[in-house]
């Protein structure tokens, strides 16, 4: 237990940095704890006093309005004080190091850091550096991990499909650059999903991706057959410029999720997307807004899941 930097000496979650290496019991505890928080967000007063007096710093070294907002809402619904720092445009540009920034904020009595950084491993570095009473949540680091996104996906899947043990799940799109995909794969396999597929052109797959325990497909027609859950990934526009793909039109033709391609999956298959969506690139609007889409419930559940993570960390 002690060699996992995410767990304290009692085996409790101390930081949430990645879904990799976390036991199923911890992942399930987060999902179970999120359930009652869904109800809280449906009340008149959408707030509980659990983290009253705690200070949570959103450290965003890479811009992300959506993720930062969901963490901010989650923290506020727990009655914590939230301080948002967009460091891309502040001290880092003045030459301050990452750890100097963190030291300064620790001196302001931070209780928790939510970290988004373009460099893989940034949240780990901060977690190793801070005092033991401070908790770190990775809100996305480079190509490495985005654990709360994966957990909210797991929560959404469990809500719709009840059980992980009889599912066939396909992750579709830019696996190579996706921290979301990596975190999803670790979470799905740990929770006992028997068949995880990745579907992508060769240029958007990491080498030896099979080692993660997934089945590789390059063809949507084969890969989507009899699938219960489709997890679409965002195609980042900058990937086009790097010449890994000929054009967005061609990508849509082969890998964009249209109603015709969706029909290859099981009739009750659900479609997830972490957002923001590129309509007409990785997903057709008819599918994104269709009855099999759970994209908006994902956003709602994302708040409850982040509330659960924050409360579990603050209480450990």
């Amino acid at each position, binding site marked *: 237990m002690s060699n996992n930097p995410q767990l304290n000496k009692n085996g409790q979650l101390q930081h949430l940095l990645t879904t990799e290496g976390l036991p199923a019991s911890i992942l399930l505890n987060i999902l179970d704890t999120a359930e009652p928080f869904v*109800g809280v967000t449906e009340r*008149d007063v959408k707030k509980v006093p659990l983290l009253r007096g705690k200070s949570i710093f959103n450290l965003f070294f890479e811009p992300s309005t959506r993720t930062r907002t969901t963490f901010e809402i989650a923290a506020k619904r727990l009655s914590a004080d939230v301080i948002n720092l967009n460091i891309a445009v502040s001290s880092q540009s003045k030459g301050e190091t990452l750890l100097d920034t963190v030291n300064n904020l620790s001196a302001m009595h931070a209780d928790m850091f939510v970290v988004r950084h373009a460099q893989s491993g940034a949240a780990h570095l901060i977690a190793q550096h801070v005092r033991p009473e401070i908790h770190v949540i990775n809100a996305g680091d480079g190509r490495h991990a985005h654990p709360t996104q994966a957990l909210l996906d797991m929560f959404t899947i469990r809500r719709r499909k009840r059980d992980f043990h009889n599912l066939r799940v396909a992750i579709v799109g830019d696996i190579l650059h996706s921290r979301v995909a990596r975190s999803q794969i670790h979470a799905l396999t740990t929770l006992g999903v028997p068949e995880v597929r990745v579907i992508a052109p060769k240029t958007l797959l990491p080498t030896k991706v099979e080692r993660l325990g997934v089945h590789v497909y390059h063809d949507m027609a084969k890969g989507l057959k009899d699938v219960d859950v489709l997890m679409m990934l965002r195609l980042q526009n900058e990937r086009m410029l790097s010449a890994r793909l000929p054009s967005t039109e061609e990508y849509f033709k082969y890998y964009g999720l249209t109603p015709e391609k969706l029909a290859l999956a099981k009739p009750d298959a659900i479609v997830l997307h972490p957002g923001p969506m590129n309509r007409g690139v990785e997903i057709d609007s008819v599918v994104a807004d269709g009855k099999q889409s759970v994209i908006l419930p994902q956003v709602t559940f994302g708040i409850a899941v982040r509330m659960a993570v924050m409360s579990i960390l603050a209480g450990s």
Partner: protein
Amino acid sequence: MQLPEAEDLLAVLTARIRQGISSDTAVVGIHTGGVWLAERLHRDLQLALPLGALDVSFYRDDFGQIGLHPQIRPSDIPFKVEGSHIILVDDVLYTGRTIRAAINELFDYGRPASIRLAALIDRGGRELPIAAQYIGATLEVPPAKMLALEKKADGKLDLSLYDKHQGNE
């Protein structure tokens, strides 16, 4: 020590509450024992408003010491709290801290017209100025012991006494 029969106490409690209810009375049980009692009260008193349930974990005052309780159940208040007359139901009334948390949580659903408290057993030991309007029985229980309500396979309720491993109530 000799414990009273929970079913006998529930009959006493039901009779006492019956005097004080009207068509706009709602009952809300506190998880877990309080919900079992509230289900029975709701049925036997034939209350019109739907049954409510609270898990007060997000409102407890010991979060800073012991963290989040495992296995929190969703709270469910399926009636309009604003202006309602609520009877809050718990199994064992002890320090009063759970009741304080429950009252705070109820107010996040709206402003009730009144809240009364019913408990199967009052074991004394209050640490807050909380009093019950309806009690099945008063019982002296040593501080090192924990008194808990259990539900048997046949649905009947039963009281048990445990050694306290950790500060539970």
